């Protein structure tokens, strides 16, 4: 035995899979919610799985009528967002696709605007600034191009891809499939305010302006986390339509603060049951059911009575609180990850085994036959995967499978009894020998 149990408590086994730090509680009762609840989904695995599936979703070119590729981007698949497709975003017919880059194998989001009159490369002047902007609350822009791949003159912007992301309107006001819209609460509003402030600070620092705070152009990518999407579109369109810019950068940046204020105000309105839709901004704010501090921030933003620096100062305590939740969420993810660290190893092992087994070229050379040198591997596979009970009924025991594979992986000296299919002969072999056989076969594949 490689392990000696001396304690009466089975500590080791129990703990093999890591656990989240005890203080991160989950599924608290509604009144017990903590700031980390803003960021950690209740069903993290499910959500991750859905995201993975969404990333894999594909559509055949014959069905979609989409081009096979647009420059290096292929496997285009429309992202069905109620407020994105076909709608005239930015005054042009616009659609959004998921696409894979042939250069690095990553997925990207492709925003296409039809028939934008781009006549000069000068229209892309602002792109390099957007490209070099790295901010956790801004969807990164990678490149911009015009193309005839769609059989028209399309402007295409390539951004980071976030599977399963919804825009603010979808996330909070529409029932998508089974999923009810998430209720807006004051902590959530603060969190949005902070994230938008972060985005805005970084954008302004880069010498740019956001220019649009449209709830359909802000996406919720993970629980509680938002990002400005569709950045840079306005700059290009303005350059393309040759209108001389009306406002200076300074004006635009001031406008950003107001735009952010108006967006938050609209979101905050949903907290109020009575009709406040038709009231002016100044009349609406006092009616909101939020704290005085939030009202004050809203008032300052909507009246352009504040700078970014001042805003940061005012909301500093809330930002600090926000860091608390984020730290918990990072810790939680790490803890979840610790449960999964052995997965990759098993995938590699399975892939190795399946690559050598039943290979047509090996079958021909006779090494899998009863006298062949790979025969033990064949018997071992039967032993691992094809167990039966006394009545000959298949037994499906994942524990047995993983245990056997772990031992094979480590190549332990333990020996096992492998019986031939005709049950007339048997083989006693150690995991170590089996491992060497597998390794040898694998090496032969490569040579």
């Amino acid at each position, binding site marked *: 035995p*490689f392990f000696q149990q001396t304690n009466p408590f*089975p500590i*080791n*086994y*129990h703990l*093999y*899979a890591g656990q989240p730090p005890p203080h991160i509680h989950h599924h608290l009762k509604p009144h017990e919610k903590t700031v980390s609840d803003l960021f950690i989904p209740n069903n993290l695995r499910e959500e991750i799985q859905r995201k993975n599936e969404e990333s894999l979703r*594909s559509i055949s070119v*014959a069905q979609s*009528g*989409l081009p*096979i*590729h647009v*420059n*290096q981007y*292929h*496997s285009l698949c429309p992202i069905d967002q109620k407020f994105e497709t076909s709608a005239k975003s930015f005054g042009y017919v616009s659609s959004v696709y998921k696409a894979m880059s*042939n*250069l690095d*194998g*990553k997925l990207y989001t492709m925003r296409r605007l039809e028939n934008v*009159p*781009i*006549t000069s490369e000068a229209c892309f002047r602002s792109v390099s600034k957007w490209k070099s902007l790295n901010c956790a609350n801004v969807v990164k822009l990678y*490149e*911009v*191009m*015009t*193309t*005839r*791949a769609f*059989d*028209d*003159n399309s402007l295409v912007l390539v951004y980071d891809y976030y599977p399963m992301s919804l825009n603010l309107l979808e996330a909070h006001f529409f029932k998508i499939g089974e999923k009810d819209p998430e209720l807006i609460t004051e902590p959530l509003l603060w969190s949005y305010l902070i994230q938008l402030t972060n985005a805005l600070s970084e954008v302004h620092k880069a010498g740019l302006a956001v220019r649009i705070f449209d709830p359909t152009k802000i996406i919720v990518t993970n629980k509680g986390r938002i990002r400005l999407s569709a950045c840079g579109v306005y700059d290009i369109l303005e350059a393309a339509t040759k209108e001389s810019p009306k406002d200076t950068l300074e004006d635009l940046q001031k406008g950003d603060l107001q735009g952010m204020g108006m967006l938050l105000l609209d979101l905050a309105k949903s907290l109020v049951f009575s009709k406040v839709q038709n009231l002016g901004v100044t009349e609406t704010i006092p009616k909101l059911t939020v704290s005085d501090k939030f009202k004050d921030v809203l008032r300052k933003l909507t009246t352009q009575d504040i700078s970014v620096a001042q805003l940061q100062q005012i909301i500093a305590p809330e930002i600090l609180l926000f860091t608390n939740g984020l730290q918990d969420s990072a810790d939680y993810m790490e803890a979840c990850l610790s*449960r*999964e*660290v*052995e997965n990759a*190893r*098993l995938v590699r*092992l399975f*892939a*190795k085994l399946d690559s050598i087994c039943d290979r047509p070229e090996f079958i021909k050379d006779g090494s899998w036959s009863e006298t062949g040198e790979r025969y033990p591997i064949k018997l071992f596979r039967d032993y691992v995967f094809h167990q039966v009970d006394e009545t000959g009924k298949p037994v*499906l025991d*994942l*524990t047995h499978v*993983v*245990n056997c594979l*772990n031992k*094979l*992986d*480590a*190549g*332990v000296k*333990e*020996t*096992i*009894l492998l019986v031939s299919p005709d049950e007339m002969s048997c083989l*006693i072999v150690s995991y170590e020998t089996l491992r060497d056989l597998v390794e040898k076969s694998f090496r032969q594949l*490569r040579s």
Partner: protein
Amino acid sequence: MQTLHLWSDQMMRPPNFAVLSQEPLRPTLDVETIPPENHLSFDTDAPYNLIKLPRYESMLLSAWPSDLKFEVGKLPPQIDPEILRDSKTIDGFTMAPYNKDKFGPRNLHVKQRPLKTKKHADTKFPKFLSEREDDYEENEESVRLKQEMMSNAFEYVPKDGEVPNAFKKTDILYSKFGVDDFDFTFYNNTQYAGLETHVDNAYTNAMIQLYRFTPPIFNFVVRTLAEDVRYDDCVLAELGYLLDMLVKANGRNVVAANFQKLFSSLPQARELGLLNPDGKTRNDRGQRKLAHLFSKFLAECLAKDELALYHQETSVHVDGICGIPAHTLLRSPYCSFEHKSSTTVYSLDLNVVPSPAVSGVTILNYLEASMNKTLQHNIFCQQCDRVHAIEAVLSIEQLPNVLMLNVDLTNEQMNEVRGFDDWLVPEFYSAPSHTGRPVVRPNAIAGSGLAKYELVGFVAQITSRDSTNHLVTLVKLPSGEWLLLNDFLVTKISTEEALNLTYWWKRPVTVVYRQQDGTGFDYDGWKSVIDDSILYRDHFAQGTREGKKIEYELLTRAEAPKPGTLVAIDAEFVQMAPEEYNFRSNGSKVLVRPKRVSLARVSIIRGEGPKEGVCFIDDYILTDESKIDDYITSFSGIEPGDLTPDKSDKTLVTLQTAYRKIWLLLNLGCVFVGHSLGGDFRTINIQVPPQQVRDTAELFYLKREKRKLGLKFLIYQVFNDRVQTGNHDSIEDAYSALRLYRKWLELKAAGELDDALQR
């Protein structure tokens, strides 16, 4: 020394046993039990590290060689359309035969290839004209190379199941010099003009060519050019100019610009969804249906315009050529409801699959099945006051002179057609029958009075390996040879290849037969009856000429142009769309479409006679100014408002009016003088034979420097005059060109031309 006893119940055979030099291995007991709570199952997400990895002292088996490289980002393998077209679905599984030699061995590892936008078409493309090292004396080597490339480009017999080059989609490429630099002549070795792509609705090219090569239709359409059309939006006239141009081009490339401009402006065309900027598509059936719809729409436009043009109540010509009286009988199996109606259609949809036959199924079986078909519909029956099924019986009583058949089958049904070897019959025989449905027979029966129908041609859909589709036309020439018209690629091909529909990449779209009556093409049908009155009168758009500035003097009958009459012409344009580039934010830039311009003004002055130099046509073209991208006033002299009736003080006419005048001058045999006329004629969208052109830019061409001189520069050099001091004015420019031409004649006569050019 140990002793080994062997016990056996086998008396006859001694048992096999191995002599072991060491103690035999025994299975070791797996002492460590895994607690139940650590058990894994297929149904839960219990982590695998509940099962411990034992102690290890050498590299784990699961470790892969760290120097192995794996590629990501590959294009997912596309299933070859050829395989898909051979597939059948049996018991829910789609299966197809596989050809290892063509598609490669099974489970072949596909390497990652960088995706690039194809710069060149699949066929080897000749150099741009500007890149030619020698414009004039082509040496042997370059001739040989061009020959080789051409025979390659016109390859029409498939090799290894590939789409032959002549059938592949061709694409115009642009150098920095624009469309003029593209060597269209490379793609046409016949006297039959092809149509350029890169216009709106280029998908209609194939159908237009099919009309062009159907003599009764061609003759009727071109004959109407004799008439002085006095209303706008006449599709018939516009198609007439186009077909006439296709003949006059004599093998040069033609662009259906004016026709497409009119077509795109028709509200019905928009409503029907016919305005498709580019016909290239991945939806095969959709493209076929679009082509059918266009053909039907076009035939109806022609019939409608016939009524308007000849002030008739019913169509005589169009109905007489291709009209098919169709009767619909609605009846109910449940009640006494019955309703009969009759209409005339101009083409027949082949959309019924005939009952299976053992062999020898041809288009005739489909035709028969489609001539008399019964459909089930649910309607609200007014008699019964409830919804119930009715039968709609469609029947055709006789076949027209020109029979247009739209092959309206699903992709699967199309796959069946592929299986029949001689599906597309070159001829058949038909006669009315007492049952009401015409009889069609593959062979003549002596003395039966059957009319013989001959295949005129058909439009085919070509699918490429990347699953895109485009349309080509295959027609039979009067000589009996077959011609392939693939946009601007035109070549003769063998009858066998033309009619072969067994290829995976080729599908019939619309097939035209005509009754054999000996009618041939009548290219000059309009000539004897031509109405040229428009040359001698004003015909302003929207009537009035109050307060207009008139800078011309109308021609009089006494001055009627004769063959050889010299006129000088100049035209001005406005820009409808700028050059289109593919830009990328990494700085790359590729021209994909040249700028699009539209005729805004044309001036023609007398080139001889007592009034030499006096303008007689100065037409401004009525234009929807909201679509103008740039007036380029400094070049065109056109200013905002000039082309809109209620704002302009110019002599505004419709494009068709202005065009007709130029077309009349051309056909009356006038010789056109002007500077750089190629571009002007291209934009006016007219084909002028070289012998009717005197282009001063060509006449004063500097061969050695390969330089064409500007008008302004030439005038200054030759006459020491300054022209074009302000915005361009087409009357002034036409006059300058006339002066230059006169000077050129002078110099030429005196033998001083070369000296003058060197100065």
